[in-house]
């Protein structure tokens, strides 16, 4: 089974060396932890092995697209256990989006506080800049359901960002605030 001299094998490992920073860079800024980013990076490249063996052309855009799918799967797994919470959370939801500027500085930390499907919707729509219909396709929801999901997700984001700012500035002791800010700085990509 030694195929190390086989051109497709060398090509794939060569692609790995070149593309790893792009794939990992994409994932690490959209995941709540480095460990998750590493897991999804590994899943993406293992999928690339299978694809390359069946003759598909694997390149950086293919890898980023696959990484995006792995990310959606990840949120789906995370969300499955929180189905009930989601229903409770959204039953009384009446948020309306405003045009107030939002906190984009701590985006990864704010997203980490959201429910997985809110995180998914915002990441695909805004961080990745995909049109709503593509977000709907990726999340396997209807266009209408995706639009309302985005509305709720944006409200949740504002809520979480506001909560976080409150925690960081007022409610904690100086020492703890320092710790937390430091920790967050460390987590910025």
């Amino acid at each position, binding site marked *: *089974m*030694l*195929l*190390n*001299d*086989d051109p*497709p*094998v060398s090509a*794939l*490992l060569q692609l*790995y*060396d070149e593309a*790893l*920073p*792009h794939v*990992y*860079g*994409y994932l*690490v*800024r*959209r995941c709540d932890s*480095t460990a998750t*980013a*590493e897991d999804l*990076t*590994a899943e993406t*490249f*293992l999928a690339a*092995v*299978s694809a390359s*063996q*069946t003759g598909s052309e694997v390149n950086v855009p293919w890898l980023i697209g696959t990484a995006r799918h792995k990310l959606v799967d990840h949120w789906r797994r995370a969300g499955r256990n929180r189905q009930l919470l989601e229903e409770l959370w959204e039953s009384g939801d009446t948020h309306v989006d405003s*045009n*107030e*500027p*939002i906190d*984009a500085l701590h*985006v990864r930390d704010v997203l980490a506080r959201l429910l997985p499907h809110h995180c998914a919707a*915002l990441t695909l*729509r*805004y*961080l*990745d*800049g995909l049109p709503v219909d593509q977000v709907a396709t990726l999340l396997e929801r209807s266009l209408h359901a995706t639009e309302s999901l985005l509305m709720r997700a*944006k409200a949740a*984001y504002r809520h979480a960002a506001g909560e976080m700012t409150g925690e960081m500035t007022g409610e904690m002791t100086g020492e703890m605030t320092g710790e937390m800010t430091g920790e967050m700085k460390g987590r910025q*990509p």
Partner: protein
Amino acid sequence: MTDVFDALRLHPTPATPSPRFTAALRDRLTTALETPMTNTNTGNTASNTASTAGTRALHVTPYLTVRNAAAAIDFYVAALGAVELHRLVGDDGRIGHAQLQFGSSVVMLADEYPEFDVRGPESLGGSSCSFHLEVDDVDAAHALALTHGATEVRPVDDQFHGSRQGVVRDPFGHRWVLSTPTPGFDPASYGTNAATMGFELQEPAATALSGDEHQVKHYDQGDLYYFTLPTPDLAKAQAFYGAVLGWRFDDAENGHVGNISAPPGSAHGATVTADLYFVVDDIHAAVTRVRAMGGTADEPVHYDSGSAATCTDDQGTRFHLSVPADKYRR
């Protein structure tokens, strides 16, 4: 209408993961590329084999196919003392590739993939090869294997060829010969014992072990071929290394160590430093390269064991080039 959330847009920014993760994933991908699950282009296997033969040492690793690889791994770990190195579990639940360590050997295995014509003994109705497993205590190993569900093929007994062995068939259909060397067995009686069983011992002339047990090996350029240790008193050195490392010396004159495999070497009175001999394909070409790189090289000398040239590198460190004699290589 502008959307204030557009401020969240991330532009592609590469990021480098930890070197440890990078290397580990590269290994996983290399392994994944070798699995039966992903290896569908087997048409050019012969040319691959031919092209690798000259560039890497020959090495055979058994690759087992089993129905229910997960259960088989459990069995090999519990019953035969294997250590699981890793497994690749497919999204269909099958194990596409796993590696187990048995002592110094690695065994690979995978679930059945009938779609790639990869089938185990249970599907094929038998297995054509056996696995010979060297163990410390064959009686205990045999009993343990049976406890874990192996079927006895042959009970443990002393064999004419110098091993005490038992044979079992594992629950997945593979045949294992468990073996421990018989203490005190005289290797010289191998041929005569075989004759009493009706077999004549025949060895190809090129690879037959001579009386001094020279090792015949495959060498690649860059391999260490030979070493010498500086030992002013050869007799003392032979006593010391014989006791410490079990070295046996062929020849009291030159101190050649006859019973170690890789690389052979000697304790020697003539030098004051340890000497290392590295394999090259063409000694004259190698001497030219040494000189071109600013080192020095003596003219090659021909010995019974091959050609050698004493060199110093461009910083003054001494080393040797050698081309092993044909009788020591294959």
